[in-house]
């Protein structure tokens, strides 16, 4: 790690001001920043420790929404009784992420901002070129080892997968990111790589995530997060799906359905085409499987990741069927 100075912020404003200095970086759980600093990807000059700020770790759930402070730990949110009841997909996405130790460290704000596991991105000594690290320098991943790379939302400049789980659940349920002075939907918060993969979010200079909000909904209450990976545990997703289903009073027809994908796209991926295809329909295996295929519209493979195009719709379908069954709506 580059030599840096350490500054412990005592207020949000102080943190914002400190991080405005050249090379300033916020330190919350540290699980991303220190990891990337060791890889040589992050080279902060000043590390601004915000873990001792008070008031940013609260979890408040009421009938209309959940509001979670940016410094709430993943583990605390995952285990929170009301979150588990009203937003099971959110809780599950956190429980299935990382390890118990990492969940005790990593914060909700930091979790959203975790960066790709692309091995080319993470090895600057061997691969100086990387459009994320060094705009315009090229993408060494294309044509390389791509088993874990994205098939959705890619560009000629970048095919790196967004690695997180929580954001996938959040984007499904129209959550927003609270930046203090403004609120941005999670979907809008994350950017597609396009020609500027170095810009991953709309977070501006001096801005800081202070919390997230998730509107309550019947779909969120009947939701799940399904994560498929090589190992049973402690691994990033090969493909994952956050799904919530609400049925009409007839107990059959879909009133509201939310579908988002992880592990396959360059940002948390809301699969609206799947949702549209199922709203107003009764759910049976064939209908669900056909609709789930729409999740892969526009998918592009780069060799080693081709399997994701097969796999992801199956994950989506399984999750939808599970949630349909959960409310007795599977024909």
């Amino acid at each position, binding site marked *: 790690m580059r030599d840096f100075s350490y500054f412990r912020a005592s207020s949000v404003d102080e943190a914002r001001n400190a991080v405005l200095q050249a090379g300033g970086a916020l330190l919350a759980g540290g699980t991303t920043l220190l990891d990337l600093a060791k890889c040589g990807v992050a080279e902060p000059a000043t590390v601004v420790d915000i873990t001792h700020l008070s008031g940013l770790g609260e979890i408040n759930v009421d009938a209309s929404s959940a509001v979670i402070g940016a410094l709430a730990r993943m583990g605390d949110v995952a285990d929170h009784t009301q979150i588990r009841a009203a937003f099971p997909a959110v809780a599950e996405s956190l429980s299935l992420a990382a390890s118990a130790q990492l969940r005790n460290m990593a914060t909700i704000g930091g979790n959203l901002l975790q960066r790709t596991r692309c091995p080319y991105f993470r090895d600057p000594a061997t691969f100086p070129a990387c459009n994320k690290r060094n705009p315009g320098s090229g993408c060494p991943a294309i044509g390389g*080892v791509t088993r874990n790379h994205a098939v959705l939302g890619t560009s000629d400049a970048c095919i790196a997968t967004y690695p997180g789980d929580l954001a996938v659940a959040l984007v499904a349920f129209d959550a927003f990111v609270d930046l203090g002075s403004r609120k941005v939907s999670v979907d809008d918060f994350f950017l597609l790589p396009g020609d500027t993969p170095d810009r991953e979010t709309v977070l501006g200079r001096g801005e800081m995530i202070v919390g997230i909000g998730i509107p309550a909904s019947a779909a969120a209450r009947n939701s799940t997060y399904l994560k498929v990976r090589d190992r049973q545990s402690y691994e990033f997703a090969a493909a994952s799906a956050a799904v919530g289903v609400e049925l009409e009073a007839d107990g059959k027809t879909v009133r509201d359905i939310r579908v988002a994908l992880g592990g396959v796209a360059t940002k948390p991926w809301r699969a609206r085409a799947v949702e549209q295809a199922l709203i107003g329909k009764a759910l049976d295996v064939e209908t669900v499987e056909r609709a789930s295929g729409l999740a892969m519209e526009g998918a592009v493979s780069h060799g080693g990741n081709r399997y994701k195009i097969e796999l992801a719709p199956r994950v989506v379908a*399984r999750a939808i069927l599970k949630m349909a069954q959960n409310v007795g709506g599977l024909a």
Partner: protein
Amino acid sequence: MTIMETRKHGDASDGMIGGRQTRFEGQLKVTGAATYALEYPVEGLAHAVLVQSTIPAGQVVSIDTSKALEAPGVLLVLTPEDDLGLTTASDWHGNRPENQPYHPLPREVRFNGESIATVIAETREQAVEAAKLLDIVYAEAPSVASLDDPNAGEGKAVDMLNVAWGDAEAALAAAPVMIEAEYSTPREYHVAMEPHGLTVKWDGDQLTVWEPSQWSHGMARSYAEWFAIPYENVRLISPFIGGGFGSKGAALAYSAVAAFAARKLGRPVKLAVTRPQNFTSYGGRAATRQTIRLGATEDGVLQAIVHRGASETSTYADWPEQTGAATSILYKVENFSSQHRIVPVNTVTPGALRGPGKNPSAYGIECAMDELAWKLGMDPLDLRLKNYADRDYQSGKPWSTRRLREALMEGAEAFGWSKRSHQPRSMREGRTLIGWGIGCGTFPVIQAPSEAMIRILGNGRVEVVSGAIDMGQGTYTILAQTAADVFGVPVSQVDVKLGDSRLPGSAIAGGSMLAGSILGAVHKAATAARDELIGLALSDANSPLRDTGANTLTFGDGRISVSRGEGPSLTLPELMAALGRDELEIRRNTLPDGATAQEHHQAWTTMAKVRGPTMGDYSMHSWCAHFAEVRVDEDFGTVRVSRMVSAFDCGRLYNPRLVESQWRGGIIMGIGQALLEEGLVDQRNGRMMNSNVGDYLVPTNSDIPDIQVISVGVPDFNASALGGKGVGEVGIVGVAPAIANAVFHATGKRVRDLPITLEKLI
């Protein structure tokens, strides 16, 4: 049948050989007090970090070190420009080129990730950052990324691995039933939890090295030869090793660099190899491929085996991962042909990783047998029993002991194999397909001499002293048990000192040869010490036992007494006091009588005295049969092992509790090999792209079911003095094919390239 039921220890018999004594050094390990190589408090340490190449082949044209040298705390930068003045050391067999200079930081780059420079600074953090400031100019040369590279070619034949008897091609052509298949395995890595590294310190021309080592004497020899100092001047200390699995048996290039830097700076140096650097600082298991053709009669009698294998090696050394090593020995067959080639590519030279040779070999033949069974419509268990080898058809020698039949039968019984339906895809729970598979394994008994010292102190404590090492196999424990057994004292009265090249010589902890070797030496020394004590007790004027008229004495329950149970009895300290001795020291080895000093040195520091499994009158091997149940998600292709029963013939078990742990450990590594582990190489530049434990996946706790292990062995006194055969290597052999065969049974899909990842099943 002995199913190893877990039971409470505390029984007096637990301390005897064969007892279930808990791990002797357990307290140190659970309290954090066991000290590993990089943890010794050494004053005035400087910290070295390695810089590795980022091209696969070519020349280091120049390295501009000026910025790095100006960085805070930097003491020294070493590059290929620096002549370290070292001489090439011997290989494992003791062969050494004459006066050949050794350049551990070579100018010629031979693989991506080769160490080419070192930065030494006051702190590790400073060294790491300064290393980024090196300006390296390369002239890149054409390269071959891997076995899969179209330019890799066919490589070269390894003549000594050509094995043939009968007329395999003719018998195959005549066989009514034939199968042919190609199997491949990727690069696999040891991933010992303790990364490599060392601390080195010079006092004049005396060198102390704290380094994890599977072979303290052999590695000390390398240092002595590199630096042209007497062997006695080197002391390599390694009482605890955080896992080795074959990776810690040799001093490596970075070791030489660290030792040189320490001498140059005149202060001790610590060099920690980072986890990513571990993947290219030494070789893992070579990638392999093999084609197997089996011919059989309609009723399943093997007529011929034709095997052609190849493995990856480096461009600068030949390391064959012998894909035919188990093929020749598992079944009765009158016509056999096996050949193996090595294909040089730009990689670090591969090395020994648990079950070398036998492991990929068993994967091939055991999958092929399953394919044959399917083609014949036979049960895979029946096919194996039908072709049971009554002797070693390669050497023509009888088995010393081979209870593979018992392993198959008892394993099958415990697993419930008889309930298996023949048809694939016949067991399911919802979207989960369930399958069962068998795989057999074997590993040779390798014998080597060792030396040991027994010291009995005036206070009655018994010391066992050896340069042998314990990386978790249980050396401390079984040596303590051996001494306790011989002297009839509780294990708590024994001290064991290990892991120091200054201590009596020992075989390498590798090839499953250490336990048999060192136990022989310790038992011999302990018995000699006991005999000496008896002699003294019966003859010394001050001994209360002198006038008993006995001609021998009994050691038991902590006392020494006359065999008939009458007369005085003394504790060890009482006897030592009576004899007026504060110490009795006996050193014994298992070399032939009259061995010269040079032969002693050679025996402990090279493989020259090691004996293979068929060098005597018998063919000697450990054996096992694994039974696996897998659950495959039909939609996702994910495979989970849900049940595993494995039965072993490893001869006599010196400590079943520890043996079970090693067996399970081998099986778990085999589960990783079957389902997860694969070094991913960028074919454009030969770079290993998953050189960390988040991307090179080894099993987690949640990937592993309860594993039942069964011992069917009997003592084999041809194999070792106390009747044991090797334990550590064999556990992994045959696991991957058992799982691959179970996956076929579950899904009807035959995956012939490891690991069986989900994309191969959807």
